[in-house]
């Protein structure tokens, strides 16, 4: 059985394209740095046939994290309790120790019923929204009978009705919900360009004790002041620097590479996984030198 403590080192988001490539290279030293994988429960709940066989293969070989996309913690419709119960059963069935979600919403109400937009939309940063989202996170944790972590999301539109900045919103929600943080390093950078703030100063205010693991990814530069969070490009230097700053500040934590679009063959992704490992090792090394 996997425990939260089994989620360590370096992880990779499990995309369908990558599955046969990982299976072919299993136990090959070249992919030894894939230490855990992440799946979206919305893709795998009730999976049968080939998908079920693939899932079993990974469950037997890798610690797995569930990273949700459609819980819609900030959505105007009632929390989807039926779905949450499916998530709970899924986590139990496959002994998946961790479930995280986004600090965003992906639903609305059409003709009096919930409708899904299947994308991550920005919650306005208001006091009311803090209480509303925190309450839904608590409700989620109560139903699952376990803590969840929420991820700082990337976004492109600043809500004119916002009453606070993003970091204040995140901190307020985490404190009020008493949940963990799934820190997305790339999202900090993307938002810092899109909304012209200092990413490093933002990172300094993160409550490090709540971090369970982090994401790192590439993005698409559309304009000098507009980045789109595609997870489809190589990671750029300033994002690597932010990861280093985070390790420096909070100590190392598990870090997972997200590559969701424009997916190259696995060997082309490995250097980024190896680089995460190398940065983690350099910090472990420094730490042990410091304690000698």
């Amino acid at each position, binding site marked *: 059985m996997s425990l939260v403590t089994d989620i360590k080192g370096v992880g990779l988001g499990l995309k369908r394209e990558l599955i046969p490539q990982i299976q072919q290279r299993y136990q090959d030293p070249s992919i030894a740095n894939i230490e855990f994988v992440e799946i979206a429960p919305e893709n795998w709940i009730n999976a049968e046939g080939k998908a079920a066989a693939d899932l079993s293969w990974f469950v037997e070989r890798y610690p797995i994290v569930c990273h949700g996309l459609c819980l819609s913690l900030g959505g105007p419709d009632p929390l989807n309790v039926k779905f949450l119960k499916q998530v709970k059963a899924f986590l139990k069935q496959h002994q998946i120790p961790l479930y995280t979600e986004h600090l965003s*919403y992906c639903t609305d109400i059409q003709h009096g019923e919930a409708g899904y937009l*299947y994308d991550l939309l920005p919650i306005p940063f208001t006091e009311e929204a803090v209480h509303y989202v925190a309450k839904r996170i608590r409700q989620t944790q109560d139903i699952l009978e376990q803590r969840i972590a929420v991820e700082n999301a990337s976004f492109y539109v600043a809500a004119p*009705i916002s009453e606070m900045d993003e970091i204040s919103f995140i901190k307020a929600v985490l404190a009020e919900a008493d949940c963990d943080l799934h820190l997305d390093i790339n999202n900090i950078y993307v938002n810092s360009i899109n909304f012209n703030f200092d990413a490093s100063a933002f990172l300094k205010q993160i409550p490090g004790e709540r971090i369970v693991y982090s994401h790192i990814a590439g993005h698409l530069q559309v304009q000098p002041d507009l980045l789109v969070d595609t997870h489809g490009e190589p990671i750029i230097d300033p994002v690597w620097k932010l990861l280093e700053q985070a390790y420096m500040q909070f100590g190392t934590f598990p870090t997972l590479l997200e590559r969701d679009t424009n997916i190259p063959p696995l060997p082309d992704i490995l250097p980024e996984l190896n680089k995460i490992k190398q940065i983690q090792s350099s910090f472990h090394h420094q730490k042990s030198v410091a304690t000698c």
Partner: protein
Amino acid sequence: MLAFQQYQIAFTAHIRDPKHNSKPARVKDSRMAIYREIVFNNILSSVSACFPVCINVLGKRKWQQLCRAFFAQHQANSPLFREIPAAFLSFLNTQDFTQLKLPAFLTELAHYEWAELAVSNIPEHNCTLSTDADLLNERPILTNAHLLLVYNYPVHTISKRIQPTTQTKTYILMFRSSAFRIRFIALNAMTFELLKLIKNNTITGKQALLQIAEMIQHPQPDAIMQFGEAILKDLMVQEAILGSSGL
């Protein structure tokens, strides 16, 4: 509704249908454009992945218009991505095909394409099979991962070039092989009836074929038996029938 939720509703209404719903006040349009694009494109690719032949028949422009209408008017109410194509199918059923100048076979073609996705996700049942299959004297076991389909158009032959205008009753067995390949077999009416009889795995091949002979009032039931056994054996070679069970 809370103030921030009113903003959210205006935000999503605009994303769903920008022509009819203006963006929330004081929001930068160049940034709103990102959401208009990425959210729709995401839905479009989720739907499109399931319906390559429909896209080919309609052309990209008409297909996009249809997906746009789906996104604007129809709610997809499942958080599971796999269920988006089914929501699109139910949307198609509400459309006025004549007004939209859509081919009459489109709903059936879309259903046929969706069936492939559906069959890929049907659970297989565990059952004990005899080591030597006896498809006549034992119960033939049809894989649970199958759908028996009836259409008014020959959906499996449709392409950009071949678009039927007249109806032809079409029977299809769609099933999953042991290597998870989705296969289809066009059936004649008799084989379709035979599969309907054996699909619940409750009767022997002989019993099923005798029923067929009676149904069509065939003068020589033996001929049906021979012919039927050959069909069952062929279905086993193709992995639609897994074997037989005497239990």
